[in-house]
């Protein structure tokens, strides 16, 4: 089963992601900031990651760099959750190594179709 790690410091958002992803039949792990996310990433070995950008301790950019250039180099697909639609933020996310992005508030069907396009 496809395993997804969702990282957001807002518990409302975590909960929304959890229910949307679980309903679509994914295995979901949650983390509440970048540091927590890196730990969960190592322990759960997800097939795809969804992460928020603005988070305490370690933000989304830092998290992505940690996954891409950290101890265990990984090319796991990472989707960035963002409220901004600005090209600049997407560019930054991509430079950090993000695979794609989801604009909040997200539409569940859109979210699932994006994920399905990224996992085999």
């Amino acid at each position: 089963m496809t395993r997804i790690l969702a990282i957001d410091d807002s518990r409302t958002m975590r909960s929304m992601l959890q229910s949307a992803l679980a309903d679509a039949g994914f295995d979901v792990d949650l983390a509440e900031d970048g540091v927590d996310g890196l730990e969960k990433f190592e322990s759960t070995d997800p097939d795809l990651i969804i992460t928020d950008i603005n988070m305490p301790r370690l933000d989304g950019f830092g998290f992505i760099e940690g996954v891409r250039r950290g101890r265990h180099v990984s090319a796991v697909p990472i989707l960035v959750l963002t409220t901004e639609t600005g090209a600049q933020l997407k560019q930054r996310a991509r430079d950090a190594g993000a695979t794609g992005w989801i604009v909040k508030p997200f539409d569940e069907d859109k979210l699932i179709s994006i994920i399905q396009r990224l996992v085999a």
Partner: protein
Amino acid sequence: MNDLNDMFFQECDDLLEGLSSGLDDLENGSGDEETVNSMFRAVHSIKGGAGAFGLDQLVGFAHAMENVLDDVRAGRLTADENIVALLFTASDHLSDLVDAARNGSDVPQGQGASILSDLKLASGVTDGDPATEAAGAKEELPAFEPLTLTVDGALPELDELLSPAAPEVTVITFRATPQLYANGHDPALLFRGLEDLGNLTVEADLSSIVPLRDAPWSTPSPSWKIRIVPDDSVDEAAIRDVFEFVDGLCELEISAETAPPDNAVAALVDGAPEAEGPSPSAGPGQGVLTVVDPAAGTRKTQAARSSTIRVDLQRVDRLINLVGELVIAEAMLRQSMDELPHSANGRVDEAMNQFKQLSGAIQESVMAIRAQPVRSLFQRMSRIVRETSREAGKSARLVTIGDATEVDKTVTERLVEPLTHMIRNAIDHGLEVPEKRRAAGKDERGTVTLEAAHRSGRVVITLRDDGAGIDRARVRQIAEEKGMIRLEDDLTDPDIDNLLFRPGFSTASEVSNLSGRGVGMDVVRNEIQALGGRVSLQSEPGNGTSVTISLPLTLAVLEGMLVRVADQSLIVPTLPLREMLQPGQARIHTLCDGDRVLALDNELVPITDLGAALGYRDGAGCIEQQSLLLIEGDSGRRSALTVDAIAEQREVVIKGLEQNYQSIPGIAAATILGDGKIALIVDTDQMIALPVKSGAADRPAPNVTGDAFHA
């Protein structure tokens, strides 16, 4: 969805609390970069959640506030006094908007619009300032990198595609950069996305592939030529959509072809998984990982991030109840052991002691679950201070001490009203107007201090102001005018101060909008007493007034006097108890209808026989062999209860009765004693209010028999 809704609003409360404490830090200068960051995140999270729930008004306002905080964060805007004040007002309004969204009610428009425009102005001002704007932009610039997207000749073909003479086949040439793989993309999956658009032929050009062991990281990856025979007319935008995420990570050419597909090259249908590019990676670990060390952060961020779980309050209360019973079971066990012959060995005794310690520790820990810091309560008060001082035309700031002091959740909730009233009083009546303060050599800005502390098993909350103190002459004059005291009464200063707690007292020369709402300090005292607390007042002319509230740590335990009445054990709460008297020392008069009164301090206090009042016996007991308990109710009215014997003072665990029985007049609750017997807890306020008539109870006695029951 309802659960999510609740969760969102709960989270908003936490975030607003964090925002408010950040603002406090900014105001008193203890804020740092992380303070602003976490404030930004708080507003950002509120905006994000509000967007998901379609709360547009909230989103719009949060967005404006977020912009200002972002400017502060980026150094484009200095958090000076004006900005902090604006943010305070904005955070109050944000909190109003959250409340309105929660209750589905409307928000008064006028103020919000002006705050919104102030916010926009604050963040907009920097837009017009080229110097600061440039400084801000420079920070963001290194993030840009030129896009390497090749779109040669794409647009003309798009026109052709859309025209009626659109060609049948679209040809896509695609070459991935190593970064594409490193970012988690897989060309095969991209091609699968294209399959939705039509019939697909994919050819890989492997000519540029070198053996893996010779391949440096910069090796060009294979390129693919993809031909789509569209199901319907497919426009280029739909194709670009599929490549949206890899835009800039690949070379992409989209063109139209009228000629049939050239099959000279072996076609690899449905992607080319075998033709994987270099294994995904980036340069050797030069990536700098910036993990903020939590220890290096401020104490506040740690407090804000303490990990928590949310538990239904009912579960906690059930646990508290069970632990209460455990403690009682322990006492019962102890009692039956004491009745055993002493030959029983000492090891049991030792184990028993350990058991007692453990159950005591468990009880304490469980009580601590219901406890929460007064911080959120205090933060709500800072808003009251701001609003009241503005309305009263005075300048005041709130200083809080002991924010982390923990109090039972119910207590923090029920203290909101009394504290609000006390603060309004302090600012409205206590603090002088700025001119007067200057004349008296004080800081024009008054200080209201709210302090919480644990003191000998109780929570003490003190509200101090540095105002003019109580004008005792004026208080006395008003009390005389209202007939509360007589001209010749000799009153000490504390006596006069206590007049403020009398119902219907108001010192405001003119009834003000703020505190003079016909609710006086008497209501404050009633509310505090309902929580099992006491309130007292100290004042020093010229230096201010302080009001002290003392509360029990928990509402589940009550300090009481165990008494015997008509062979029943009863508990009389200690709090309203003023005196214990033996009839011999007291002057008892019998009135003509047989009622008895106690002559005390020039006042006649009605005597109520507890046994008769509760219907345990007809008529009063023999008063010479009884004891008198003098109690004073919320209203200040007093009454003397006669009981057969006073056993001891003890703490008891309160067990509600109403769930199992209906509410019984004169009885507040029950408890279980060490021997497993039930003792009812007397409701002293109701006893005072009961008709004095002894005996002749027209209702069945509240006689609960049997051993420990489960409430």
